[in-house]
């Protein structure tokens, strides 16, 4: 549950800070400012920006009138939240039991090798982020890989390579 290293130079993030803050403000305006709204707000911000920028977390803390440490604590507790930008495409490999016994480790290994990154990392060109997920609940089609929102079932290492190849063509 640790925080991985930023994959982008900090100065780029600083340049975008102003735009980010105004986007976050827009989101915050639709909330009442209650503590219970913290998780929904973080989800909304991440949905819009793809990650939770540090400056944004401070802004959310001020809006909800809670310590920054509380917001940071919640943002780092839940696996869904990312504190660094992710790739344009997210490939998620299921590591559920059904998938595991049907060969998910080999699928993950193939994708890691093809992309040259490990699970939890993003390619340097920001094209792909590779993640593992506890379970998608599509166990009957194991092993399962989800690319962005599309579910691919009954995967093999070969099919996994083909998904990447298809994306590259686009």
């Amino acid at each position, binding site marked *: *549950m640790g925080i991985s290293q930023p994959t982008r130079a900090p100065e780029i993030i600083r340049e975008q800070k102003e735009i980010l803050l105004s986007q976050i403000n827009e989101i915050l305006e639709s909330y009442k400012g*209650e*503590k*219970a*709204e*913290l*998780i*929904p707000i*973080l*989800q909304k911000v991440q949905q819009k920006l793809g990650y939770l920028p540090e400056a944004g977390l401070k802004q959310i803390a001020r809006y909800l009138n809670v310590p920054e440490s509380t917001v940071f*604590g*919640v943002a780092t*507790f*839940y*696996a*869904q*939240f990312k504190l660094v930008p992710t790739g344009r495409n997210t490939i998620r490999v299921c*590591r*559920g*039991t*059904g*998938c*595991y*016994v*049907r060969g998910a480790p*080999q699928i993950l*290994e193939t994708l890691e*090798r093809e992309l040259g990154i490990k699970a939890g990392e993003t390619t340097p060109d920001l094209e792909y982020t590779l993640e593992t*997920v*506890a*379970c*998608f*609940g*599509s*166990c*009957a*089609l*194991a092993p*399962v890989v989800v690319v962005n*929102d599309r*579910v*691919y*079932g*009954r995967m093999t*290492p070969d099919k996994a390579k083909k998904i990447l190849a298809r994306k590259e063509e686009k």
Partner: protein
Amino acid sequence: MQFEDIKRQAMAQWETTQNSTKPRILIGMGTCGIAAGAGDILETIARELEKAGIKAEIIQVGCIGLCYAEPLVEVIKPGKPSVFYGNLNPELISEIVKDYLVGDNPRPDLALGTRGEGALEGIPKLFDLPVLKPQVRIALRNCGNIDPADINHYIANGGYDGLRHALKMKPQEVIDEVKKSGLRGRGGAGFPTGLKWQFCHDAPGKTKYIICNADEGDPGAFMDRALLEGDTHAVLEGLLIGAYAIGASEGYIYIRAEYPLAIRRLQVALQQMHECGLLGKRIMGSGFNFDIKIKEGAGAFVCGEETAMIASIEGNRGMPRPRPPFPAQSGLWGKPTNINNVETWANVSAILQRGADWYAGYGTEKSKGTKTFSLVGKVERTGLIEVPMGITLREIIYGIGGGIAEGKSFKAVQTGGPSGGCLPASLLDTPVDYESLTAAGAIMGSGGMVVMDESTCMVDVARYFLTFTQAESCGKCVMCRLGTKQMLDILEDITSGRGKEGDIELLLELGQAVKDGSLCALGGTAPNPVLTTIRYFRDEYEAHISERRCPALFCRPLVTYQIDPEKCQGCGICARACPVEAISGHKREVHVIDQSKCTRCGTCLSVCPPRFGAVVATSGEPATVS
């Protein structure tokens, strides 16, 4: 509009569709169906029908449970029993449209079975098939039959009759009815539902909360997703009945964000309930006021635990707290709170619709009713199943599941996810009920049932589950945070050939300490997969430790791949497929694996043509070919 009027309209609409002269096509569009390609099938059907100039009604339904045969389509022609077709692709469905909808040939060669009155030659009755015959559908009663996005479909099939019935009773009478049914919590622990409600009902305070736990986190389990996607209102009706019984006017559904389709279904359902006067003030003309909010989880397994879930809804880190006080006394915002899981709520609506006595007619003395399972892993027919309590594991795995896939032999079945245990072949005749499974060292759990065959290494399975619980431990209790880490380190040593004498004993001791030293069920049950695999498969642990051998040929550092020179035909397929170029040899000459380069990925074994069978995996013995 009164509920009676809504019901009359819904039934009229349902009758019209049932008696329509147009053919109807039902297509399974749950997450699994879509992943298997149901979207393409849907498009193809629409296109083919238009081409043929046939008017038909296409209805998108939830999961019918025959996941092994996805994508699935049910075709109903007026005056004939409906026909199910499985394992479809666009070509096959085009043929079916042409042959059965344009023509009159139901294509017995492609059909799985029929449903409804009458028979079609050459096609068996669907519910006579071994996969469905032992099943009893109570929680899943409407899944696959109705359009979950249309509240009228649910109402026309007896939906919200249970709520109407409950609202005519006193809250205490509703609780008594649920007690009489014998229903126990389907989230895993099996606490009697009526009793749980009684505690919350009796707790002092005007404001009370009710929560539907849809944070289905066990890897290998998808019953609750399928239920929410396939029959959303069955769950919501149960939640309303529970709210009335305990005296809550506000409810929450805590659902994991990994289930986007189920969330969409819930949003639509809540909207429809408002329109029908089933949410808000004075529901069905009674004095009962109630509203529901959806809370999306954010990817923390521990939030399935009641007190952690409450913390998460309040906007905090989802960490459990000591009990007592139990949520029934002090839960959400410090108020009395009742939490039940998705499947429990779907059973509640059935019980109030059809009566406690009817419900208690299923199951065993202490475990009443039915239980859903997601039957997955190395079984021939994977699926979402619902069986009466008391059925044996053997009947499920060999009857419904059709035995082990690829002709291999059974090794173990895992129930209860990371909190459960692995049971060996000698316990296949264990009946599925709360007490029997617990006595065997596993638990009922929420319904994940993962079948493992001879190629699954039990030490590695224990390591796998511990990797999961160790990562998901919230870190509050020292034993759970650090004890699971120590256990995982030992298991990693064993599976990579660094196991030591005494490791098994140390695992047993640590396992007990983690159980004793953890506040919540996550830590309290995390050692179970390790403890049960040691109990039933100790020989596999010993082989890893003292012989450096993995009997299942799974743990890579202990496996050697070689090419049998007698059998190798020099086809070169393995050499081309090897990702690290460890295989050398000329065309039509014997190939050799360079053991110093080999990463033991097993690709060569899987690509070597079966008619040669030249690649051999061994463990625990020195390489015979260099």
